[in-house]
């Protein structure tokens, strides 16, 4: 059975259990209104990460599992034991790296389905109760959105890669010119300037990709229609939307930095300290997931202008209620 056939079969199965969905008004598409969606997405990502963590820990555990201090020597300043373990664990590098690669692939491509589920849960409500739909309620629509989201992801990736490659070439040329004229420091600074512009452009493309994916879910659009919707949204808000993505991106770095600082000063390494550190780290991850979902919600609102009258019908197979149609967004925060 082909992958597409599998998706269609799963889609058909899910529809049998799907509740009737109605599109929420744009203003109501908020991450904070779907806390369980945040938790579910966090659980998905944590599960994937745990596969990697377990793989690495098994290597360390074989060597230091019976050390009276546990794996504490691996974190001792100077890293003598850590480097020694790395030297003796060369054989484990390939399986751990393979696990990491597969998890990364699963996160990037397999993550389209959880992202579709989360977006659908944020953008729609059940027609009967007007409450947050369950995963089962949105499964059919989310599954149906995955092929178009995949296409959009690939298009965005290709475009981003092109921008980056051209940018690298341009940065190299500018660097060479500036180095010859002014010096190596100035050459690197010029290249850095070009690099920042290129990163901004690539980020702009990424924002477009996110908007297109949001349109696939929100408007039940095909890939090219979603891209058109994305371009329309970006044209309408060429500053506000990238800015909205950028500040969220920057904000998601803050908890990481805070946690790094906190755990650096948390010198005790007993069981209690371990629990505190784990709690800090998981808080960081869940906050970052929430921020990302906030951006997803923003993207859903931004493309709501183009929601077709048949959006609800497409989700449920029944005519949509006219009053449930989402209103155009003005781009406020989540």
């Amino acid at each position, binding site marked *: 059975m082909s992958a597409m056939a599998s998706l269609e079969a799963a889609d058909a199965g899910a529809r049998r259990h799907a509740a009737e969905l109605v599109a929420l008004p744009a203003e109501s598409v908020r991450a904070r209104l779907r806390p369980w969606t945040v938790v579910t997405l966090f659980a998905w990502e944590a599960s994937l990460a745990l596969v990697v963590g377990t793989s690495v820990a098994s290597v360390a555990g074989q060597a230091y599992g019976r*050390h009276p201090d546990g794996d*504490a020597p691996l974190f001792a*300043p100077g890293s003598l034991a850590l480097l020694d373990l790395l030297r003796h664990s060369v054989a484990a590098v390939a399986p751990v790296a393979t696990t990491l690669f597969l998890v990364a692939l699963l996160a990037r491509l397999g993550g389209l389905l959880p992202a579709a589920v989360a977006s659908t849960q944020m953008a729609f409500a059940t027609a009967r109760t007007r409450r947050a739909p369950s995963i089962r309620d949105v499964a059919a629509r989310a599954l149906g959105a995955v092929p178009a989201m995949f296409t959009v992801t690939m298009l965005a990736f290709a475009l981003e890669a092109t921008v980056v490659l051209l940018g690298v070439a341009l940065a190299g040329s500018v660097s060479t010119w500036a180095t010859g004229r002014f010096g190596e*420091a100035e050459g690197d600074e010029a290249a850095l300037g070009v690099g920042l512009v290129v990163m901004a452009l690539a980020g702009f493309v990424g924002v477009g990709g996110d908007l297109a994916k949001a349109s696939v879910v929100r408007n039940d659009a095909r890939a090219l229609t979603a891209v058109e919707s994305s371009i329309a949204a970006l044209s309408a808000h060429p500053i506000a939307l990238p800015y909205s993505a950028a500040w969220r991106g920057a904000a998601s770095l803050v908890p*990481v930095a805070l946690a790094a600082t906190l755990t650096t000063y948390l010198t005790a390494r007993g069981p209690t300290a371990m629990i505190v550190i784990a709690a800090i780290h998981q808080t960081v991850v869940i906050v970052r997931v929430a921020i990302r979902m906030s951006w997803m919600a923003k993207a859903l609102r931004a493309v709501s202008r183009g929601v077709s009258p048949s959006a609800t019908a497409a989700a449920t197979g029944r005519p949509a209620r006219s009053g449930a149609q989402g209103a155009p967004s003005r781009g406020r925060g989540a």
Partner: protein
Amino acid sequence: MLRARAAGAALSALVALVVAGGEAEPGSTEAGLPGNGPPVLGAGAHMTPRGAGALREHAEDVVDYTLRASLDPRAHTVHGEGSIRFRNTSAVAVRELWLHLYLNAFKNERSAFLREPAAGSRGSGLPTDWGTIDLRALSLRGPDGAVADLLPALELKRPLADGAGERAASDEDETDARVPLPREVAPGDMITLDVAWDDKLPTVLERTGYSGSFHMIGQWFPKIARLEPDGTWAHFPFHHLAEFYADFGMYDVTLDVPEGFTIGATGPVVEARREQGRVIERHVQGDIHDFAWTAWDRFDSREATVDGVRVRCLYPRGFDRDAEIELAAVGFALPYFGAHYGAYPYPVLTLVHPPEAAAEAGGMEYPTLITTGGPWHGDPFTRIIELVTVHELGHQWFYGLLASNESLWPFLDEGLNSYAEADVLRAMHDQRSLIDLPGLAVSDHAWQAFVANAYAHDAPVAQAASAFPTGRQYGALVYSRTAAILETLHRVYGDAAMTASLGSYARLYRFDHPGPESLIGSFEAGMGGDAAATLRRALFDRGWVDYAVTEVVSHAEAPARGIFDRDGQRETVKEAGKGAPGGNVEGWVLVERKGTLTFPVEVELRLAGGERQRVSWDGRGSSVRIPYHGHAALEAAVVDPDHAVLLDDDLTNNQSTARDVSTRGATRVLEEATYAAELLVEGLSP
């Protein structure tokens, strides 16, 4: 040569560091040059060494060079001429001279240098512009004023006698020239040669060459090989992984570059002037065995005075941060090295930070001049810039003052110096001496041990540079393994013994050409016969060691089972007693030593309730069973808990826990790895 923060209040207390900014003005006293002051003719003339009377003040003066050199930066050529005065200090008469013409290593692909693979080392590519040194004149002044032309008899290409492989490689090599002499030079006699030559510099390739208008000019003049005391010449082709070896003497070198270029060179400037659009500087320094210089029209410079030594840093415009780091590193390390290995005897030190395009010129040492390297913005998370600076500075001792045969015994300069480098960095940054990231601190010592132990079984440390098949193995064994060996001896036998060994070696053989036996002898005197024997095995015989705790047994003290004849009665004890509550516990720890090296080690016994006991083991046998009697249960044992033995081949077996004791597992690794993976997954998610 190297394969590859600013100081605080404590540093300020150690050195008087005066940093002056501003761009150099060639040929003027404003440039920080000493102007027309008297030449500094010998080492030790400017300062009183620590432990006055203990240190030699001068080297034996064997060969003096009086040279003039003119740089054409557009053609990348140097024209040189002058005289070389050589004294036969050996015990026998000589009828020949050997000249090193190192720049011919870059003449073509048939040179020994370019034919030798050196994977993992810099300089592995080809120059995009070849380099040569062509002798134009070479004559011997006779005692009666007659001049004998030696050039026609010069032998540039010839087979070598020391190995078929080398012979094949050296047939077309032109870096090691023989010069037959028309008359015998008796022991103690002196001859004077007049010489003229032309250098064509290559694009920068390992130490020397040009990049744009930057010129690093090392190994650039016809250099007389060292004459050993037994009358043999220590001559060799320029091998890819090898460095140099020469006699001490006086260098009086006048350099001539276009106006606008800044010169950095060995020794102090004793005369500087501008003349017909040229900058002319005369550098004079005694008690040295090489001379290098640089010229560039884009240098900035800073100066500092450290321990009475005038330190000048030349660096590309915009690299101010690097200059600060390098001067601070010298500010700490120069007094440190002086205190440990004898005072720096020269009045000046020049740091040259090449542009990034000429990075292969960086990380090299010459007498009173070292080259550094690093990105213009410094390096906030690693100590690489400091490491390179400290390493090259250390060579002022382990190469400069202890002028060993670097080609034959590279570990004597690079290895000893790598130990000294890590020792200084530890003093500066403790466990954060190589990488200083939030949550990850890596020390230079740990890195050296990591690299050293990975190559422990591959080849001996003590062998000629040309005997190493790859640059990776050369770097690992010569640099890192030597350093790890010495640091292990340091940690095991202590500071005082190390000072009495390596410190004494550095002082005793100052201005000399020590070999491996000199080093081992110094360790025998300072640390004892066991340490010296261990050092010899580690250097020459691929010595290695692995300590392991293989058994930890603990149980309540109870009557033994079996048949016992007591007081004329035979008694059979069938069941092990449980021991009285709160009674004694007995047990043992089995520690094994694998390998050929022997170090005394500590074994730490971990008892229930958190108590710890330390037991010493001389490490001589292949194993030791350490008995235990006490009130608390013996739960675990760790051999070498302080990691004194950096050479320990496997740290993962250095501990063991009794079977019935619950263990902690790798919970922190699980937590940290999962968190890192979560951030990755979160970043990749659509």
